[in-house]
């Protein structure tokens, strides 16, 4: 039995009243709330053993370094990475994707090459490739989606030709909620000799992810969407690729030896971690990983499926409400919708007055919204701490707004 009440007690922010009402937080796809163990792990470092990592020859630095590198090991085992040096800490998913675009991309992409994306990508998995393609004279190709938000897998083979050098795809859409058949796409792409990057910002926080099973080359995700702090993200990369790549940012910590005119690089993963890293945040992410593992990713995924299915059923029953994206069994805990002809910003604003936090806008996916013929949508997203009761509060508030505006 999944005990939501017990989980909620771990998240202090969830019991803060909002607008005089109890908070219904339905925006975890943007960023999740933080449980006590994460807050405590970070506070412990700041209070008890804070010092810069890697070079201090004294107790505090030694302890902070150990905790930092230990967090890396836990993240590695969380996504089943075979080696801890394949885990590069970045600021977030966006920076992880940019790292690959700058370092791998500028070394390997040539004029006439193609980069295959999908129509449901977040801007962070579009714009870095646009910059790369413009610079290199390469071409972006998008795998289309169906009207109900599924990838047109029937078109994959025809788009995956020998010109495609990189496939960059989201594992789960932050708007449609669609969970994509990434393993199949990786298999086909690799058979054609393409490198595959997976945007796992919406999947790693919510379901078991195994990079060895997926066999992807790169996988990127953010700490703040999975109960961890902001400012820390992860790039997983196969060691053979990371070793061959030039550094992304230059500076301290990423070097072995510096001369007046040249330098040599540190080992993996530090070659890609220039400057003082966000080590306290990484330690917080390590605690988040422990917290989620303690509950169990299978259980978390099952709970979110249940809440999402209930939300689809409740919301779809409202007059004038249209849910976008596929049926419940093909999606994660994201439900975006339009409501009558009320602008999504107005809907979100009115829900906020009831203490319900949802997101309204294009959710960093403007091309996808244009493909769907929409400017903006309202999005409710669910996590471990959300309950069917909160779905009821959302549905009741929407009903009330509908009545008020006739």
């Amino acid at each position, binding site marked *: 039995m999944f005990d939501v009440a017990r989980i909620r007690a771990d998240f202090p922010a969830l019991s803060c009243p909002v607008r005089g009402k109890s908070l219904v937080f339905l925006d975890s796809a943007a960023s999740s709330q933080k449980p006590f163990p994460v807050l405590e792990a970070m506070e412990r470092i700041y209070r008890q053993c804070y010092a810069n990592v890697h070079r201090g020859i004294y107790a505090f630095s030694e302890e902070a370094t150990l905790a930092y590198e230990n967090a890396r090991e836990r993240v590695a085992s969380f996504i089943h990475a075979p080696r801890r040096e394949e885990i590069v800490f970045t600021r977030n998913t966006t920076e992880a994707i940019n790292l690959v675009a700058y370092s791998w991309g500028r070394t390997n992409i040539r004029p006439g090459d193609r980069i295959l994306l999908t129509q449901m990508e977040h801007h962070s998995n579009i714009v870095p490739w646009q910059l790369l393609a413009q610079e290199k004279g390469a071409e972006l190709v998008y795998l289309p989606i169906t009207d109900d938000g599924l990838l047109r897998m029937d078109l994959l083979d025809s788009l995956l030709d020998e010109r495609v050098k990189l496939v960059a795809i989201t594992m789960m859409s932050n708007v449609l909620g669609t969970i994509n058949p990434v393993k199949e796409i990786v298999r086909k792409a690799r058979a054609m000799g393409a490198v595959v990057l997976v945007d796992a910002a919406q999947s790693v926080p919510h379901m078991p992810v195994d990079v060895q099973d997926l066999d992807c080359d790169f996988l990127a995700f953010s700490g703040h969407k999975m109960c961890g702090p902001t400012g820390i993200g992860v790039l997983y990369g196969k060691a053979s690729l990371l070793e061959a790549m030039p550094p992304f940012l230059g500076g301290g910590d990423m070097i072995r030896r510096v001369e007046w005119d040249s330098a040599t690089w540190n080992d993996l993963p530090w070659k890609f971690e220039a400057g003082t890293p966000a080590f306290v945040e990484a330690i917080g992410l390590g605690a988040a990983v422990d917290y989620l593992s303690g509950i169990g990713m299978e259980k978390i995924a099952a709970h979110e499926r249940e809440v999402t299915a209930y939300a689809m059923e409740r919301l779809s029953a409202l007059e004038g409400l249209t849910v976008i994206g596929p049926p419940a069994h093909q999606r994660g805990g994201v439900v975006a919708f339009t409501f009558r002809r009320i602008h999504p*910003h*107005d809907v979100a*604003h009115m829900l906020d007055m009831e203490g319900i936090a949802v997101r309204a806008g294009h959710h960093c996916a403007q091309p996808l919204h244009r493909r769907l013929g929409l400017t*903006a949508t309202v999005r409710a997203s669910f996590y471990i701490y959300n309950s069917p009761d909160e779905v009821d509060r959302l549905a009741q508030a929407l009903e009330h*707004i509908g009545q*008020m505006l006739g």
Partner: protein
Amino acid sequence: MNTVYTETILDHYAHPRNWGRLAAPDIVADTDDPSCGDQVHLELSLDAEGRVAQVAFEGEGCMISMASASLFTERVMGKRLEELEALTEEEVLNWLDAPIPPTRRRCALSPLTALRAGLAAYRRAFAGG
């Protein structure tokens, strides 16, 4: 329910004033905010003394942007070009007479944003011609 959605705002949203286009506008202005899809098209014509003689707008967007644009057309009528140029954000927000939170300021100010773009274009044409 939220006090931002006052009777005035709901009324101007449901029944926008000065909706449409002018036959021969002197100033034509557009804003298009891709982040939320608010679009305001504003047209003004000036009389011989340089006062706003006619004004019209069309647009698509949230209640606050549309209601603000409608109220705006009523308030700018008769104003001189210099007065239009001196309009401040606070004045436009005051016209709405509702507690606009920081997250919705951009919506409420969309007619002013449009006007400023239109005035700049008008001045450029005037200076060039």
